[in-house]
């Protein structure tokens, strides 16, 4: 048994210690957002945040995560109460198939938590590990820039004014 904190909740995980976090999230905890894309750490679709840092969950074994805080896209917000990054991706319509998007959003979230004033160059550099095949890159960049602006102002607004349009 490994104790894992995911989205603020503590879970006892009955999985072999070499199980990659991705399978724990999807198979044991029934979370959808982190996606299997390659299992090789090459595409970024599985990205989640561990203790504030973007991590490729497909190559991060459970044994390294005892006591750490894992955040997935589900932990940021909901359709009715989206986090700024989620609201930004909705407002910019930044998806086609959307399979890569959850991973992109988590890395962008980690970046903006660290540096809310990230430049376009820094955003591009940060997203370098991520692949998108539909060619939605322009919109993804726009959404991350919008999220940065929303994060600057979102906390000032009451919750009922923070919902998506």
């Amino acid at each position, binding site marked *: 048994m490994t104790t894992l904190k995911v989205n603020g909740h503590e879970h006892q995980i009955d999985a*072999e210690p070499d199980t990659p976090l991705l399978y724990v999230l999807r198979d044991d905890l029934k*979370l*959808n957002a982190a996606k299997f894309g*390659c299992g090789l750490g090459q595409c970024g679709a599985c990205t989640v945040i561990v203790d504030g840092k973007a991590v490729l969950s497909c190559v991060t074994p459970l044994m390294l995560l005892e006591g750490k805080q894992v955040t997935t*896209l589900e932990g940021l917000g909901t359709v009715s109460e989206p986090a700024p990054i989620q609201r930004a991706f909705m407002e910019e319509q930044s*998806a*086609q198939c959307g399979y890569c998007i959850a991973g992109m959003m988590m890395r962008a979230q980690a970046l903006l938590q660290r540096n809310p004033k990230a430049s376009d160059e820094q955003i591009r550099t940060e997203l370098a590990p991520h692949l998108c*095949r539909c060619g939605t890159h322009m*919109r993804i960049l726009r959404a991350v820039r919008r999220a940065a602006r929303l994060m600057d102002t979102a906390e000032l607004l009451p919750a009922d004014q923070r919902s998506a349009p």
Partner: protein
Amino acid sequence: MNVPMNPDRLQPSRRQVLAGGGALIVSFSLTDAFAQDQAAPAAASAPSPPGSLKTSPYLDSWIRIDADSSITVFTGKDELGQGFKTAFQQIAAEELDVPFASLKVVTADTKLTANEGYTSGSHSMQDSGTAIQNAAAQTRALLVAEAAKRLDLPAEGLKTENGAVIAPDGRRLSYGELVASDMLHVQAQAKSTLKDPATFRIMGQPVPRVDIPAKVTGGAAYVQDMRLPGMVHARIVRPPGYGAELSACDASAVEKMPGVVKVIRDGNFLAVVGSKEFQTVKAMKALAAAASWKEHASLPKQNDLAAMLTSLPAQSSTIFERSDPAVRGERTIEASYTRPYQSHGSIGPSCAVAQLADGLMTVWTHTQGVYPDRQAIAEMLHMPASNVRCIHVEGSGCYGHNGADDAAADAALIARALPGTPVRVQWTREQEHAWEPFGPAMITKLKASLDGDGKIADWNFEVWSNTHSMRPGGAGCLLAAQHIAQPFAVPPGKPLPLPEGGGDRNAIPIYSFPNAHVVHHFLPDMPLRISAMRSLGAYHNVFSIESFMDELASLAGADPVEFRLKHLDDPRGREVIEKAAQGFGWRRDQKAPPDRGYGFAFARYKNLAAYCAIASEVEVNRETGRPRLVRAVAAVDSGQVVNPDGLTNQIEGAIVQSMSWTLYESVTFDESRITSIDWQTYPILRFDAVPDQIDVHIINRPGKPFLGSGETGQGPAAASIANAIANATGKRLRHLPLTRRRIKDAIDA
């Protein structure tokens, strides 16, 4: 194509009623109610209704209204990430006069929806969108007619609003009150009274996509996210290469591994089933290590695809011929262009869930064609097709025929061995890259002459290509069916008929040349597994034609945009070209900054779908050869626009994806194996090379037919970039991909 109506939609009692003389159908005399403002396709005697209503004519195949006024719209097409679900909902809401959010759309499902074949070829708007639009308009007219009868008022005085028919005196009958059990079980009329586009409130608006909220919050959005009660996980151990045979496999140790439910071996089909996903992954690796294969060195030499293709046996046919002996060329040039095998490269490897219960096989799949896939799976399982149900659930974007159908077949084959248990099959990254059917390699040879005025006097175009569709088809198109002990043979490839074509898609020039000769060399032998990839042969043919147009413009000393306009009569095409050039700031005497170049290209997809022109600016690092698309400006005419943001998203995506194909991508292989099996061996675009800006200008054509737009950008983007590289470097590159190495070599040559 003769597509049968889905029998499941008809209750036997209904069918008997219909068979009894068709009184129910003809009793709805709509002749007066439907004005003649929507041109149906010409037919000699009985004009047929437009779009997919031709093949699935009953209105209730498309629209259901329940007594509580809830409305469901059915489409036989898939949502693949193009945004159709939203666009179809807009169309139906508009023509039915109901709020957008008040209806829901059900996508391809062999039990519920019409058979619309494949979701491919940029056909969804013109087939399904048109059917839904006309079915909705005719449904609305039936509801108005029913209200007129009940209220004893003339139909002309009634209006519809917010899901109800409203009389001038304010009386209101909701659609749910008006609808009777069989009211919509009537065949569509050939013509509909469609709304005046000037009154549109929902169509033409950038309505946010209905699928995006779930996708950005971790909702269940994909077949990969399905978790049925009692579901088990399966992994396949594929052969190491085409035709490899399983010579030995001692699975006893694997069977004892934790969580393993079953090892399945059927000829060369090898799979393992487990209760937990990662335990199954580990078992797959152990099973792969336990398997010995006899491999065959059957693949061609990769380093000379052009010679390989032109040496294969060919079925050659002249597909276009025009002759004007009075016009003679003075200066002649020729060139040859090649394209390698390329991968769809879906970010999510293929996945499917299947369950055999009570003799019925249900398959949840991201196939592009639930009906053809059902047919193929049923054939493989020796089951009647009526006992197989295929339900489309979104997967990762596919861009054509990827591993989706094969994963569906894998899941069905394994589920048959575990009756009652839902089985989820997830391909690995390496399997998707190695086993997906690739976009075929192609070669084109062009030769043309200019007359004394610098106009093209004669044009010769030859293309060598495999077919561009090995979709099922039949069971023989499915990997699992090819690998089992009693295998199904791969069917022969067939050229896809013109005017849409396959390898010859867009091979016939849209320009007016006095002399033209176009030959298609169809290659039946397929050394690599190939099938449909977004835009089929149009990608390479447009790349070739539009590159060569620039070479000819250069020979004529003409501006590339003016040169194209000089040869193009089609007014909509001309407007698209002018719009893109204007948006880009294209000038006849323009000169790009150092190490940068400007390029232009244009095509009308299939010469019958959307028009697209793209101007681009590319920078080339002369030291390394590294190219980058800096900005692109596109103009597109897709007929009546339903969702402008959705259309813009498609064109932006097409440019970026085509740029990746064009600059980076080729499948690699040795004599027996595919060697490009992940993102390191098959590199694609990363964020460091993403353009600074892409602008898309839409030319809306209110009331005109929907033109497919999902693939129209692929060819022009490639040629526009190639032309910009030539403009930047002074060197013409004719062999895809236009890699850093090839550019560097050209600069240094």
